[in-house]
């Protein structure tokens, strides 16, 4: 027994399954799986961070075509980026086991939407496993590779935040050390999806479906126990919430694998007069239940009994049960969060270089429009520097669209280095090609910070720790046709302001690369900067530094002071109009 995070248990199960290849793009709540795989001391397999999910999916798919066991990891929205290869890889199939880990995020704890990866599994007609607990997540991954090999199909594994980031006592198996070497066997009928081939492949995919359904019942991930005339059917982590509050005389079915076998489901449904379906996100199970139900009364999302949005909990399940005429075994007090406690939202770190970049951008472009992107810098919202975010890479494209719509105000978009390499480049190329008039700021902190500081091609090191040739963002932008490309140190506020002013005067697409390592990685790398301090004699209490928003600046008795969080970036010293902030020891 070990106490492990869901993602740690999943990574361990991959080792038990003798995984040969792993590729992904970081995204909460999925990132730890590859981070753990890549930090294994004895590693007999290949692991990489790819530049985006489509790239990662295709890399892993090709490995599985070569007969090795491959894992692809992403967060739910990353599966949108990889949807193109996903859909057709269901046709081509695989020879080596291929597991597509797509972590869903009910309640959008760290995401831009609450989409449901099970819908992709239905859409692509591939099997999907949906764990109810950390232990089950572990066990399912072990089975997922052989399931994939048995049917020659990618298998979607879909944990949610409360699996990935929950911990539990877990029973682990033994790590294997038999690894395969990939070998590509030429077979155009399988791997070249011209119309003549794909029509056949589509039929073959459809023909696999009945056997998959039967096999999933045999595997025991869909279980049912008849205990009375009424029943609850639950899926994924919601099943564990139901188990906490369900009465002994209510039947219970747990769905952990899709597609659901209709015959199996019909037998269970027909044995009951009333059924409540409890699941997070989309009504996938509920639709299946409604399709087979004849006289049984069905409650769920479609009756308004279970919410479509957000995450469930034992209390939410108990409430749904009460509405549907079931008696939960526990009652939950109607406790409310106390009103008016000052909120404490996440905030850019003390010394984060993004803060000064946003500050300078807003100073120079007072009336600007600020499309932004996905990363720590989305927190620039608090600094008034983020007007839009929709998905990865959508700052430059949205900026270009706004400008070309006829909007006259200046457009300045912000995008991180990893996001720029992910999907920013095509947007930049298109903006230049089509003559957009805008400024693009690449927030270059040399790392994929928000998801836990994973390396990217800009870092100069791979996931496996091998040095790589650091790419040049400047050269990429110039190759896209940008002539104004300036790299500045965002800790140098006067220079940063001057560069923004220069860009403002120019036409066409201008790029500013604000380059400074993330303070967390800098600290880990041993870079030390002397902290700053406020001279109380000179501080007038004007509050200018306060509005800069650095968490190391506190205020007491109408005077500012710098706390021990200070990372020594020195920007506040440039902002203070009274010159009251100095590097310590001077």
């Amino acid at each position, binding site marked *: *027994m*070990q*106490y492990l*995070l869901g993602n740690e248990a999943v990574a361990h199960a991959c080792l038990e399954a003798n995984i040969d290849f792993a590729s992904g793009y970081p995204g*909460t*709540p999925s990132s*730890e799986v590859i981070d753990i795989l890549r930090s294994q001391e004895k590693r007999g397999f290949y692991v990489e961070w790819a530049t985006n999910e489509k790239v990662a999916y295709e890399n892993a798919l090709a490995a599985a075509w070569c007969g090795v066991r491959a894992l692809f990891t992403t967060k739910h929205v990353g599966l949108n980026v990889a949807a193109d290869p996903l859909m057709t890889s269901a046709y081509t199939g695989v020879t080596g086991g291929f597991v597509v880990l797509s972590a869903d995020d009910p309640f959008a*704890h*760290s995401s831009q939407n609450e989409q449901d990866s099970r819908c992709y599994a239905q859409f692509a007609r591939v099997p999907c496993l949906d764990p109810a607990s950390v232990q089950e997540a572990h066990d399912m991954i072990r089975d997922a590779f052989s399931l994939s090999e048995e049917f020659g199909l990618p298998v979607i594994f879909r944990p949610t935040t*409360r699996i990935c*980031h*929950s*911990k*539990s*006592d877990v029973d682990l198996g033994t790590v294997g050390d038999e690894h395969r070497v990939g070998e590509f066997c030429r077979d155009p009928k399988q791997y070249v999806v011209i119309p003549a081939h794909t029509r056949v492949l589509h039929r073959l995919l459809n023909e696999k479906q009945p056997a998959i359904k039967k096999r999933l019942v045999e595997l025991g991930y869909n279980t049912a126990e008849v205990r009375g005339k009424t029943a609850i059917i639950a899926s994924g*982590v919601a099943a*564990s*919430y139901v*188990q*906490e509050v369900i009465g002994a005389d209510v039947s219970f079915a747990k769905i952990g694998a899709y597609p659901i076998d209709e015959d199996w489901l019909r037998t269970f449904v027909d044995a009951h007069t009333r059924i409540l379906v409890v699941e997070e996100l989309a009504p996938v199970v509920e639709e299946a239940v409604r399709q087979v139900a004849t006289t049984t009364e069905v409650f769920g999302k479609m009756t308004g009994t279970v919410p479509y949005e957000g995450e469930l*909990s*034992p*209390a939410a399940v108990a409430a749904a049960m009460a509405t549907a005429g079931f008696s939960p075994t*526990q009652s*939950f*007090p*109607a*406790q*409310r*969060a*106390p009103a008016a*406690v*000052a*909120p*404490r*939202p*996440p*905030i*850019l*770190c003390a010394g984060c270089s993004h803060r000064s970049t946003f500050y300078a951008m807003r100073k120079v472009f007072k009336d600007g429009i600020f499309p932004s992107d996905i990363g*720590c810098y*989305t*927190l620039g919202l*608090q600094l008034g520097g983020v007007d839009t975010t929709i998905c990865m890479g959508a700052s430059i494209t949205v900026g270009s669209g706004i400008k070309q719509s006829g909007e006259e105000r200046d457009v300045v978009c912000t995008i991180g280095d990893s996001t720029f390499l992910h999907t920013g480049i095509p947007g930049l190329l298109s903006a230049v090609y089509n003559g957009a008039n805008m400024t693009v700021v690449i927030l270059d902190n040399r790392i994929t910070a*928000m*998801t*836990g500081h994973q390396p990217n091609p800009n870092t100069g090191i791979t996931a496996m720790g091998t040095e790589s040739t650091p790419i040049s963002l400047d050269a990429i932008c110039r190759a896209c046709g940008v002539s104004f490309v300036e790299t500045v140190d965002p800790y140098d506020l006067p220079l940063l302001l001057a560069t923004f002013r220069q860009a403002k005067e120019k036409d066409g697409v201008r790029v500013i690369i604000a380059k400074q390592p993330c303070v967390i990685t800098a600290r880990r790398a041993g870079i030390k900067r002397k902290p700053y301090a406020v001279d109380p004699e000179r501080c007038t209490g004007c*509050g200018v530094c*306060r*509005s800069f*928003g*650095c*968490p190391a*600046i*506190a*205020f007491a008795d109408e005077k500012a002071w710098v706390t021990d969080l200070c990372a020594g970036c020195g920007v506040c010293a440039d902002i203070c109009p009274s010159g009251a902030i100095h590097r310590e020891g001077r």
Partner: protein
Amino acid sequence: MNGSFDILIVGIGGQGTVLASNVLGEACIREGRPVRSAETHGMAQRGGSVESHVRIDGRYGSLIAPGCADLLIAFDLLEALRYRHYLPEGGRLVTNRRFVTPTSVYMQKQTVPDEAEILAALGDLDLTCIDAAVIASEAGSPLSQNIVMLGGASRFMPLAAETLLAAVRACVPPKTVAINERAFSLGRDAAGRC
């Protein structure tokens, strides 16, 4: 009730709530008991308000419902106020005496209550208040505040103090074992004096 002992640990991203939850989980493994817990990862960790749910003897999901926690441990006094509704009436709270004012308060010129006001607002609870910063410095490092708080709260947990101490040793960085052992014991003593 399902017989699980439900602990909610709250604080600010970076204060070590995850490490504290690891210690509790490790202690459960050592006592051969099932455990479930849930944590905040990702963006919210950047200095935001964070929570760790730990369910000792838990066999189902990892989430604790409001009004149902057996113990609330707050690494920051303002966070104790924010999460107090997880306790039933008169429930048990072990909290740090100090709090960090959120930066947004300075930026938006809001007001926050002072320590005395917050403590008064928590007065209906079964309250144990610890000056974690002072005790942690005494133990040898201000970074050991999380273990000080855990030591204080250990008096109210269904886990043996020796098991918890062994779990602390196993979970903290090897170089800091001695400091954290002291932090745990001093925290436990301080809670005993309250």
